[in-house]
């Protein structure tokens, strides 16, 4: 990718090692599927885990002290990048472990799936490490196209095909919108580097094409983040996807987009925050209301969590607004804390859903959960913890992260957003509690395909750790973690 022939140093290869390792893994998994004789499914899966862990180690060890841009900004290193990469890789590892059973059990496991999975992850890594529109685009598309395929590939039922096609069409549509926006920005500013664009845009803010470009860029990102009113793909895609992929969409995609958004809105654009803020506020408000309200009537848990994720995107958008308005490292740290909390809660909840699912039923409904507490008290306890955490009840991370976000928003004078957020939270409590009500307080309901999950050490471990983290991050850990996040955000924080 060295079109402009910049000097490529060893440092760059070290920094980009996580991506490179993943690409290697993706290729080898692909090769396995071509030459079926080489290695079994388990071997491929094992390799996938090894590759991911290797990438994680590489990401952890990568030099991070100073934010450095390689390839004229096509690839960045630094604390935030590292944070993003590590988070994405940890999520990827946990999800692939949780997802193991479903994958291996599927009627045909192929190397392609593993390959796609690793490509998606590498695309995400590229995205969070880039500051250039080109790599941004490549990373985004790498992850998106991979996800389109994963959605319909693993389980070709009508529902999943439909979901994949819908996701694909709307996703491409959004990509086109995003690219149109990028194109307009490029034609106005003459540069592909994000940091330069955001510095230049405020100077020509009354330029119509610039405004249009920025708008389309915002729409594209909003779409990927599933902000209302660009959210309608999310419930369908979440429901259609195998739960593991749903978990990936719910967590990693959000992490990736939010990190990019932080760079965009926190940087030079913040000097004209009065221009874009109303638009973003509008998206945040609609997301918090629509997500929470629509979730009220969902019966399928995955669908409900989809709407809930829309609402949570709204909260994160509130924090992004605060970043633009406020500066300083606090709001960044608040967003990152929210992301971590949200990721842990989501993975925990989807983990339990994955554990509950079987071949006949991969779409858990509230009826399935009815009266489950007497059969699986521990799982129900964990799910209840996650639901309370989603709802933002203390003493869970959900509360503390919401507190940080509200804090940032109020500091930025976004009182109306906070009020909407509060109303949204109150509504959300109802549907989160509905899950708990069904599990603990209702009698079992007769369903067509009863669930009979088997005990699994891995799931117990993952969910157990998630529960503990959810509680600890809500009680004793916020202090040190927040300190760490603040020092992480210092490098991109504008003062």
């Amino acid at each position, binding site marked *: 990718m060295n079109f402009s022939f910049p000097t490529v140093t060893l440092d760059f290869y070290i920094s980009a090692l996580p991506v490179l390792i993943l690409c290697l893994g993706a290729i080898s998994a692909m090769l396995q599927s071509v030459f079926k004789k080489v290695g079994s499914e388990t071997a491929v899966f094992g390799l996938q885990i090894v590759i991911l862990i290797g990438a994680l180690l590489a990401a952890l060890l990568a030099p991070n002290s100073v934010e450095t841009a390689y390839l004229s900004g096509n690839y960045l290193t630094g604390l935030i990048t590292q944070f993003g990469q590590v988070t994405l890789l940890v999520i990827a590892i946990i999800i692939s472990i949780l997802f193991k059973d479903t994958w291996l059990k599927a009627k045909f496991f192929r190397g392609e799936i593993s390959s796609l999975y690793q490509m998606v992850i590498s695309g995400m890594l590229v995205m969070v490490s880039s500051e250039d529109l080109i790599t941004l685009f490549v990373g985004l598309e790498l992850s998106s196209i991979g996800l389109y395929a994963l959605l319909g590939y693993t389980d070709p039922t009508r529902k999943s095909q439909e979901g994949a*096609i*819908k996701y694909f*069409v*709307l996703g491409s*549509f*959004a990509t086109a*919108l995003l690219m149109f926006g990028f194109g307009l920005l490029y034609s106005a500013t003459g540069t592909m580097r994000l940091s330069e664009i955001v510095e230049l845009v405020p100077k020509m803010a009354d330029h119509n094409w610039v*405004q249009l470009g920025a*708008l*389309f860029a*915002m*729409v594209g990102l*909003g*779409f990927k983040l599933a902000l*209302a*009113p*660009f959210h*309608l*793909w999310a*419930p*369908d895609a979440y429901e259609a996807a195998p739960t593991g992929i749903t978990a990936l969409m719910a967590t990693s995609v959000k992490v990736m987009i939010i990190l990019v958004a932080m760079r965009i809105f926190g940087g030079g654009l913040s000097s004209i925050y009065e*221009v*874009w803020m*109303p*638009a973003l506020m*509008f*998206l945040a408000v*609609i997301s918090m209301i*629509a997500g929470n*309200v*629509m*979730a*009220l*009537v*969902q019966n399928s848990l995955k669908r409900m969590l989809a709407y809930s994720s829309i609402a949570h995107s709204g909260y994160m958008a509130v924090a992004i607004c605060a970043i633009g308005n406020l500066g300083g490292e606090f709001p960044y740290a608040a967003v990152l804390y929210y992301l971590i909390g949200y990721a842990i809660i989501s993975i925990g909840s989807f983990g339990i859903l994955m554990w509950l699912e079987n071949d006949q039923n991969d779409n858990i409904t509230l009826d399935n959960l009815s009266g489950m507490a007497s059969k699986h008290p521990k799982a129900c306890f964990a799910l209840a913890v996650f639901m309370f955490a989603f709802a933002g009840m203390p003493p869970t991370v959900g509360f503390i992260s919401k507190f940080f976000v509200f804090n940032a928003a109020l500091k930025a004078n976004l009182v109306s957003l906070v009020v909407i957020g509060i109303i949204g939270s109150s*509504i959300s409590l*109802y549907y989160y509690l509905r899950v708990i009500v069904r599990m603990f307080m209702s009698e079992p309901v007769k369903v067509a395909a009863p669930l009979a999950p088997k005990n699994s050490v891995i799931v117990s471990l993952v969910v157990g750790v998630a529960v503990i983290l959810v509680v600890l991050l809500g009680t004793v850990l916020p202090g040190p973690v927040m300190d760490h996040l603040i020092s992480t955000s210092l490098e991109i924080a504008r003062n």
Partner: protein
Amino acid sequence: MLLWLVILFPLLGAALNGLLLRKVSKTVSHIVGASALIASFACALTAYMQMMSAGGEGQVIFGFDWLEAGGFKAPFQFILDRLSGMMMLIITGIGSLIHIYAGGYMHEEKATWRFFSYLNLFVFMMLLLVLGDNLLIMFIGWEGVGLCSYLLIGYWYEDDANAAAGMKAFLVNRIGDIGFLIGVFLCFKFFGTVSFSELKDIIINGNALTGPQLEAVSWITLALFIGACGKSAQLPLYVWLPDAMAGPTPVSALIHAATMVTAGIYMMTRLNFLYFLAPDTQMIVASVGAATALFAATIAIVQNDIKKVLAYSTVSQLGYMVLACGVGAYAGGVFHLFTHACFKALLFLGAGSVIVAMHHKQDMQEMGGLRKYMPITHAVMLVGVLAIIGFPGLAGFFSKDEILWKAWIGGGPVIWGMGAMAAVCTAFYMTRLLMLTFYGPNRSDHHTREHLHETSAVMWAPLVVLAILSAVVGYLNVPHVIPGLPHLLFEHYLSPIIHVPAAAAEHWPHLTATYSHSLELGLMGISVLGMFLSAGFAIVLYKNGPSPTAIKLKKSFSGIHKVLTNKYYVDEFYFKYIVDPLKDMSLFLWKIVDTVIIDGIVNGIGQAFMLVAGLTSFRMSGSLHRHAMVVMLGIFCLLTILLF
């Protein structure tokens, strides 16, 4: 120390009977209950003697800091002076007699621990009421006696009517109590204290009161008087007392005749210096007293239940006492309280004996001729009746005529006229009671008549003591006009308690003025004459049971008779215009306001969200194109926001 024993003995008795001695025989309950009272009486007597021998100065006995908050202070402390000492003696003395009597009266009960426990507790509360040195301690007793009254009226709770009567008593009293409380609040607001001794200091010895304080005094006294109306069964809050007769008769004697109901008079006397300062209130007090006296007396004329007659008579007599307070004749009021305690306790206990003999039948129409079967009861009842109607020489004569005289000079002819009319009525209905019960032929059924006999000594002995008291205590306060006897001993005895503040002296000229003896004698003559005439009329009408003339009279005045029998429809009025509307309103508040409106709004908000969600999720979903359309719509909205 002795004073502490006085109040602790009844409490101990109550605790023993109520908590520990539940399984023992009723004799033990009786002995414990009565001996607690007797011990208390003995201590009271000693304490009283000590106080009097020390010159009769009031003394304040500090107990402990009870309630302190901000500027408000109400220590648990007692005042023992001539007034409270006397009250203490009445309570424990008459209380002892009634306790002894009650053992006999309650003989047929299975277990009496509850009864004696309540009764002892009542005495304890009553002692708190009279001994407390501040309004708050008094209020403890004030409400405490109400509680005991409630429990004792509802003693036979299995009859729902009794439980209802108890509740009515408590609630009507509570109305008065709220008045009392408001008085306390006002008192604290304007004088910063609720202690009797400190109040007295401020009023008598302190600086001249400010305008607002003077105005406040009227309100304080009025508010406290509402409390007195409740407790002392004055118009319009008297309605509970007749119903309270549902309790055992010793209770009626002790609580609803001798002691508790006089609490209002005691309180006003205790605060006489305040009341003197508020002539307007005093006018109201006197009018209410006079009206109550007459009103209740008229009702009593037609009642057939022996205890109801006595109950209305009590209301009427309390009216006299209140009237006395109203015209500033506190000594007269308290003196009447004293004599009334003796003869009304006697009458009630006598009636109780009759009721026991009649197997708990109380209708006088079924009695008659009991003189033959119960000579002792008859004799003491005769004394009691003569005392209450003011037969010259007996207690009631002295005390009532003193009040009537003060009513004339202090309240004017109208007030006097009402009081005198009440006295005439009293003479009539009491004589009627005596005649219907003890004279004429016996009208009871065969079974009852077979078992009629004199009661045991436990019951008649206290009666005799009370009869003697009723006969003689009147001589403690002989008016000026009667020569040859020491005059107005009681008034002199009480005079250290009564203070007319200098600022108010002008309103009370008659307290110091001298009047001609002939006027007083003349008035006395009129009332005595009226008494004789109406008593004679009653004898004529009822000496052989209800005579044809009586029945004819009843027929020719059927309208009035009906109104009187139904007690002027006061209860019905209260129910129809106060209780029932309140109930309807409550029901409305609950069923409509609470369930439909308030809860409806709360639930409605939630349901509205659900509805919106249901509609939108249905409309928005499905088609790919619709999704894309929404995206474009979103872009349009953003454009609008961005550009404008």
